[in-house]
């Protein structure tokens, strides 16, 4: 365990000292600023592997027909498409109905899902063989897996989803936790991108939680949304719209929270490293390079903070998903409550 922790720490150290160089090695931005902040944040049509750009396929659906190209350049070469201000468009003016192109963020979402699947398969095979289920879990990785899994099952699912219902949701909560944690942590690696800093990715994840929440809603849940038992009918005019809006703001806040947290970390790191170049522009190369010592050290510290935030945000997303599902799946016992109130008033009368 100790050697594994030491290795993990060393990896973090290497990564946190390596990645600033990678960010800094990028070409300057188009708007004349010395460092390209938006370029680090936006989605691209390529992924970078060790500094080399690997262009990803472009797929378009336009006027009832699919167009496949191995990359953007070949799509432009074919003459069917051309570049415009807003992105890629058809040359003859037909609108592109849906852009199915595979982008860097999508690739990293897939990596996150594949990693989660592989880990779950690997662990499931071991437990089926009897390691861990009959004997004690063996090895660092299985212990680590068990720590995460039991944490999510006992501290999140069991705690917030009432009764025996939690068993149904453990699989979703665990996979969403692992996938988000991987996606967040990918951003720490040199050339890596964290796809959770894209609103579409987090919105998709929040939408999954939204649908699971709605489909697991009990009668009591819907009763509490549309009619409020024991509330004056006129109050319902105010409360019902608020509750219906509340159904949608919950997943919305879920998406925005994850997105904004990951994006702010990314922007912060790029901006702090960008100070080197800004100072070089302002006061000359000597001052810029010397001050770089401070900024790189600060970035290395920020990386450790970001690694913590990556896990924390995955935890918060999972926790809130469990809370929302638990709120919907809860079964109230009004009858007892109301009857006790009734008897109390009877006594008073």
């Amino acid at each position, binding site marked *: 365990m100790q050697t594994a922790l030491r290795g993990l720490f060393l990896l973090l150290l290497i990564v946190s000292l390596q990645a600033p160089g990678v960010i800094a090695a990028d070409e300057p931005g188009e708007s004349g600023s010395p460092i390209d902040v938006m370029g680090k944040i936006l989605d691209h049509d390529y992924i970078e592997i060790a500094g080399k750009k690997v262009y990803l396929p472009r797929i378009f659906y336009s006027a009832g027909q699919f167009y496949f190209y191995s990359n953007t350049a070949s799509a432009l070469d074919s003459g069917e498409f051309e570049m415009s201000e807003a992105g890629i468009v058809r040359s003859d003016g037909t609108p592109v109905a849906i852009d199915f192109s595979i982008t860097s963020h999508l690739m990293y979402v897939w990596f996150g899902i594949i990693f989660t699947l592989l880990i779950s398969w690997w662990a499931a095979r071991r437990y089926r063989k009897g390691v861990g289920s009959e004997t004690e879990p063996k090895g660092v990785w299985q212990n680590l897996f068990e720590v995460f899994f039991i944490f999510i099952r006992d501290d999140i699912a069991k705690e917030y989803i009432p009764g025996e219902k939690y068993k149904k949701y453990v699989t979703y909560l665990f996979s969403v936790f692992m996938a988000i944690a991987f996606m967040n942590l990918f951003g720490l690696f040199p050339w890596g991108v964290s796809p959770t800093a894209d609103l579409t990715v987090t919105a998709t994840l929040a939408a999954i939680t939204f649908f699971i929440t709605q489909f697991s809603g009990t009668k009591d849940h819907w009763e509490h949304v549309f009619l409020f038992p024991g509330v004056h009918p006129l109050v319902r005019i105010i409360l019902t719209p608020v509750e219906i809006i509340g159904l949608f703001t919950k997943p919305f*806040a879920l998406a925005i929270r994850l997105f904004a947290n990951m994006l702010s970390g990314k922007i912060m790191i790029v901006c702090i490293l960008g100070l080197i170049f800004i100072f070089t522009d302002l006061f000359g190369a000597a001052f810029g390079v010397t001050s770089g010592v401070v900024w790189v050290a600060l970035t290395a510290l920020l990386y450790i903070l970001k690694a913590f935030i990556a896990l924390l945000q995955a935890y*918060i997303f999972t*926790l809130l998903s469990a809370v929302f599902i638990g709120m919907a799946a809860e079964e109230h016992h009004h009858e007892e409550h109301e009857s006790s109130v009734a008897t109390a008033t009877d006594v008073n009368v």
Partner: protein
Amino acid sequence: MGLLAAGLGAGIIAIGAGIGIGMIGKSATESIARQPEASGDIRGAMILTAAFIEGVALIGAIVCILLALQIGG
């Protein structure tokens, strides 16, 4: 004008969220000091409440970003 509004908005959001999370932290540390054996439960509740406040603050922050970038008029 949009930039000014965004800056002021971000400042007010920071004040509000800071007061909120500070109060959570205060009462959580006080509760842990009073009852150290319940620190696990208190920490869970603390993170949950802080996440809710953060959500509201971030929605405000998004509005400020939209104002600053002049998106949506």
